[in-house]
């Protein structure tokens, strides 16, 4: 790289102070608490906003310079990848389904993060915090757009990429990531910072962007590798903002500690549930595997998160609740999730499959406590049945958790053979949960979570059909009508990978790329 380094007249710290903090003033025409109406209702007490400091001390001139450099690199790689028909160099076409999940389930969240940080940046009275939130807001829309650009190349050739903006609002499993972000963005500004800035960015995004994106590189997907690492280069700044923000809240007033602790408990659990999808992508959807979900969890959550919570102990903060259960479940959740998508492959916009023999052996080796005992038998049974032309398609709708909205697939703490059922009564109605973690969150704010838009219940209420569809007509095909509403092409986007159009096309095109036909 050849960058000009300008001679500086001021040091980094002075420059940052002059360019951020000095920009603020207290309002006089209107009282400050009217100008910043969300700053107090969550109970967080801030006495001196000037104590907050962005450790990266990034000013806009430097921000544009480095972001421009990142964009140039990113688009050079994306262009080269497209020009070279790079999609035909991925390990095999099953891999592309992980990218479908990424575009449909994760990129829309980047856009929501953009809106969220723009929103909280407006609400914070402190100048340094506002500037940092502004930059993160810009980063997040960049992530969303670069991901859409990068993956649009796959949309030219493969199914399931065509309508993620509709699908995030309608498809059953996508209500999980969507409701996660909707929950955060409808909280107050401080809770949003703990939810996204701290819990998600600091404790959890490493698991998505680092081992998974390294895995994309390993599977020959330069497009995803480059947008992933380009996004993650911003995440380092976001993580630092999240950590700074939590320390600032804890240092400002001891009364903030229990509020922050409850948010840490809530959002560590919420994030952990959403990441189940990533666990499944790593263990089942990357044909060449970099590390197992369990190994990634141990490095990035247990080791790195452990160090973080040791550091925060001096403020009276303890690690998030339910860590024993989380530690036990790392042997199980990726398998339980893959089994779920295998069950409901008829209602998915990506394909699923049973692992090959060597993949099963890899899973046995990585999960000696669980895979052979609990999960191999069902996968082998499904494979045998599929060979006989009797592939399992579960067509009965599942019971969902009121909080995380994931089907009730998770098992009792310590017993992977029993589904975990929890329930609460609120104002005369029963609500059901997949875990103590999700029940706790509901019980604390029931008025929020009784509003969950649960896809299964919405289907039964008749709210998931296109206008003009008559569910009382003779011979009405409910599943078909729901898939129409999802804008999913039946027989192309859904069902097993084996026999799919993607599989056939990839084989034919790869053949054309290596032979003179």
């Amino acid at each position, binding site marked *: 790289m050849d960058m000009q380094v300008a001679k500086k007249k001021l040091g980094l710290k002075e420059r940052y102070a002059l360019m951020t903090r000095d920009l603020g003033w207290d309002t006089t025409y209107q009282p400050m608490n009217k100008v910043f109406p969300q700053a107090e209702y969550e109970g967080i007490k801030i006495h001196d906003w000037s104590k907050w400091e962005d450790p990266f001390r990034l000013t806009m001139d430097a921000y544009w310079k480095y972001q421009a450099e990142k964009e140039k690199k990113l688009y050079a790689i994306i262009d080269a990848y497209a020009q070279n028909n790079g999609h035909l160099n991925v390990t095999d076409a099953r891999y592309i389904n992980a990218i479908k999940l990424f575009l449909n389930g994760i990129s829309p969240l980047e856009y929501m993060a953009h809106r969220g940080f723009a929103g909280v940046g407006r609400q914070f009275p402190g100048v340094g915090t506002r500037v940092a939130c502004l930059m993160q807001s810009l980063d997040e829309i960049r992530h969303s757009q670069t991901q859409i650009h990068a993956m649009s190349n796959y949309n030219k050739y493969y199914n399931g990429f065509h309508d993620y903006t509709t699908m995030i609002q309608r498809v059953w499993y996508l209500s999980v990531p969507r409701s996660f972000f909707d929950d955060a963005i409808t909280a107050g500004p401080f809770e949003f910072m703990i939810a996204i800035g701290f819990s998600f960015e600091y404790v959890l995004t490493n698991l998505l962007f680092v081992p998974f994106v390294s895995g994309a590189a390993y599977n020959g997907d330069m497009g995803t590798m480059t947008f992933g690492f380009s996004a993650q280069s911003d995440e380092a700044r976001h993580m630092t903002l999240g950590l700074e923000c939590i320390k600032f809240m804890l240092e400002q007033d001891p009364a903030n500690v229990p509020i922050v602790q409850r948010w840490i408990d809530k959002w560590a659990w919420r994030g952990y549930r959403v990441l189940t999808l990533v666990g499944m992508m790593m263990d089942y959807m990357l044909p060449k595997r970099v590390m197992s979900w369990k190994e990634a969890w141990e490095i990035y959550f247990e080791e790195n998160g452990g160090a973080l919570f040791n550091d925060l102990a001096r403020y009276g903060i303890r690690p998030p609740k339910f860590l024993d259960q989380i530690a036990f479940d790392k042997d199980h959740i990726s398998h339980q999730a893959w089994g*779920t998508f295998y069950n409901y492959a008829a209602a998915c916009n990506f394909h699923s499959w049973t692992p090959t023999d060597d993949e099963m052996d890899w899973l046995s080796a990585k999960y000696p406590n669980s895979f052979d005992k609990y999960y191999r*038998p069902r996968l082998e049974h499904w494979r045998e049945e599929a060979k006989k032309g009797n592939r399992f398609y*579960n067509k009965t709708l599942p019971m969902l958790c009121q909080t995380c909205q994931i089907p009730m697939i998770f098992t009792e703490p310590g017993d992977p053979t029993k589904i975990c059922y929890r329930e609460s009564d609120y104002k005369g109605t029963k609500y059901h949960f997949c875990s103590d973690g999700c029940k706790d969150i509901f019980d604390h704010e029931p*008025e929020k979570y009784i509003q969950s838009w649960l896809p*299964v219940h919405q289907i039964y209420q008749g709210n998931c059909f296109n206008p003009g569809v008559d569910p009382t007509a003779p011979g009405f095909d409910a599943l078909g009508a729901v898939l129409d509403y999802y804008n999913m092409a039946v027989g192309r986007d859904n069902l097993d990978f084996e026999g799919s159009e993607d599989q056939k096309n990839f084989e034919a095109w790869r053949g054309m790329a290596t032979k003179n036909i």
Partner: protein
Amino acid sequence: MGVAAIKEYVGENKDRLENFHGNQLLYVGWEDHLMFCAPFAFPFPPAMRFGDVIEKVLPGAFGYHPDWAKIDWSKVEWFKSGQPWAPNFAKSLAENGLRHKDVVRFRTPGLTGIKGSCS
């Protein structure tokens, strides 16, 4: 406090009984058979005979499993919200005390899924 909010705030329960066109929700799970990844959710009229759920609906949902045909229904153990429960097959859901969004599970002694893995 039902929610943290800047002013008085009341949420809307999206799943009120009257939204289901005369049906009520019943959740049904089969213990030790996790090949079905989660319990099922069904909309049923409260006047529906409980036996009809077993005989006419559940075979379509669980029948793919090789254990399904082996069930001895006289030995099945039932649970409602996790507590032992004795349904009367001849009576309706309502007469069996089943309300909107109740959850029942059944255990089939001796049947423990594919190769005993609780799948």
